[in-house]
């Protein structure tokens, strides 16, 4: 039973990291119908920014929670700036071009960003400090959940709740939904659609960066390629839930995280990535629009 709970928390932790990344894929797809293949790199850039920020901050002997928060802010802002720039440089000039063009541009951006970090940093894994303090009250449960898993769950729940409130109740959130539903009409009511698109990229990148910081601190090492596999997994989760749907991305992420955790725990850990893609193939066969997605032949 203890093992079950250990796997359960491990799955939820994975799921919430996937969700932080998957939200960016699904929001961008919902608004401009583009699969932003460079999105995984925002997760990686977030992790590196947090590493640099926390190294600098540790000089000042700040308490750990303060370093965590400040490094998180730095990662979110810096990755947000990357997301903004990527959209401006790689996607905006290609609006109205055939669908393949921005897709290729996205893959190019992804390769560029990975190699840029590879050259600027190193190809090897670099150690990442543990930024999450040990909670004494978790001591009795240390076999099933540790402080960093609990922090990941708490932070991602907080961030996702904030995002939900933003989308449901703020002026910008309503404008995002309006733009996703009918871009031409959004222009006609006076919404600056370009600004909404930029905002979406910045928000998605910031969420992914927070995910990058959390998982880096959890695992303890990073390199330039971590965005690739995490990005593909999160993308799988978004498709699983129905790409374009925000609740779908969260649901898909938790299903994927739990499936991976239980399958590696009870079956075999040799095929960790296999389970994710097997799930993706099954969904694409039996429910091509995803669990909560609308069946739109045109967009897929």
């Amino acid at each position: 039973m203890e093992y079950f709970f250990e796997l359960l928390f491990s799955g939820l932790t994975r799921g919430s990291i996937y969700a932080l990344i998957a939200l960016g894929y699904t929001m961008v797809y919902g608004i401009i119908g583009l699969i932003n293949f460079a999105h995984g790199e925002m997760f990686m850039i977030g992790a590196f920014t947090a590493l640099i920020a926390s190294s600098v901050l540790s000089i000042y002997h700040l308490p750990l929670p303060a370093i965590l928060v400040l490094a998180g802010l730095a990662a979110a802002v810096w990755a947000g700036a990357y997301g903004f720039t990527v959209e401006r440089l790689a996607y905006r000039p290609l609006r109205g071009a055939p669908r393949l063009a921005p897709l290729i541009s996205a893959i190019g951006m992804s390769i560029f960003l990975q190699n840029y970090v590879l050259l600027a940093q190193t190809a090897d894994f670099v150690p990442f400090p543990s930024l999450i303090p040990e909670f004494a009250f978790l001591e009795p449960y240390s076999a099933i959940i540790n402080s960093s898993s609990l922090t990941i769950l708490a932070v991602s729940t907080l961030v996702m709740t904030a995002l939900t409130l933003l989308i449901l109740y703020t002026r910008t959130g309503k404008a995002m939904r309006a733009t996703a539903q009918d871009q031409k009409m959004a222009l006609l009511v006076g919404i600056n659609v370009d600004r909404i698109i930029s905002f979406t990229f910045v928000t998605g990148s910031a969420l992914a960066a927070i995910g990058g910081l959390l998982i880096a601190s959890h695992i303890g090492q990073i390199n330039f390629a971590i965005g690739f596999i995490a990005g593909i997994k999160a993308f799988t989760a978004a498709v699983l839930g129905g790409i374009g749907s925000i609740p779908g991305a969260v649901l898909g992420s938790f299903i994927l995280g739990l499936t991976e955790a239980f399958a590696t725990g009870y079956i075999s850990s040799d095929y960790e990535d296999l389970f994710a893609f097997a799930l993706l193939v099954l969904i694409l066969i039996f429910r091509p629009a995803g669990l909560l997605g609308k069946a739109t032949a045109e967009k897929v």
Partner: protein
Amino acid sequence: MLELRAIDAAYGNIQVLHQVSLRVEHGEIVALIGANGAGKTTTLMAISGLVPPRRGAILFEGRPVNGLPPDALVRLGICQVPEGRHVFPGLSVAENLDMGAFLRRDRRQVATDKEQVYNLFPALRQRRHQPGGTLSGGEQQMLAISRALMARPRLLLLDEPSMGLAPLMTKHLFATIVAINREQQTTILLVEQNANVALQVADRGYVLENGHIVMQDTAEALRRAPAVQSAYLGI
């Protein structure tokens, strides 16, 4: 209030509007009629900034406005209810109205205006929490017009408001359009294939054929013109 001076508009290299000129004076209802594909929608899209004209000028209150982005035109008071209504399907009725007031910052006044809209169309009040996409065609048209009114337009562009509506609904709708024009001093440019109704409520009218303005006169005179009667009124 609005003047188009010899505008040309095109999609890619297919030119759709040729030297279109028209004027709308303050407080008027002006009808723009013409067959399907004549270029009526394109004319409104040119005014709203979605299909910027290739040549010619658009003046609003005497100032050139062609080349301005759509949001700047809404800010000046030019609002459009496009063909097919384009209600935001997943937004509630109330949220659709909020989107109409997107550029306004006077929250108190926006709330009062929303009340007024609900008084004008009680069906919308009843359904204010319902997604726009679940409304009937007639209700969606009311919502689309109300959404435009929420911007406090000075010039309202209406594209085929009667399309797909039952005759009784059309009558009710046109009575409302006239009331908006009279009571709120909103100037209206009305595009219609249904020339009959359009010319009954309009002060003046223009006839568009293959992207050319071929006739212009008072609505009264157009209704009597043999060419209009045979081509557009089915007489």
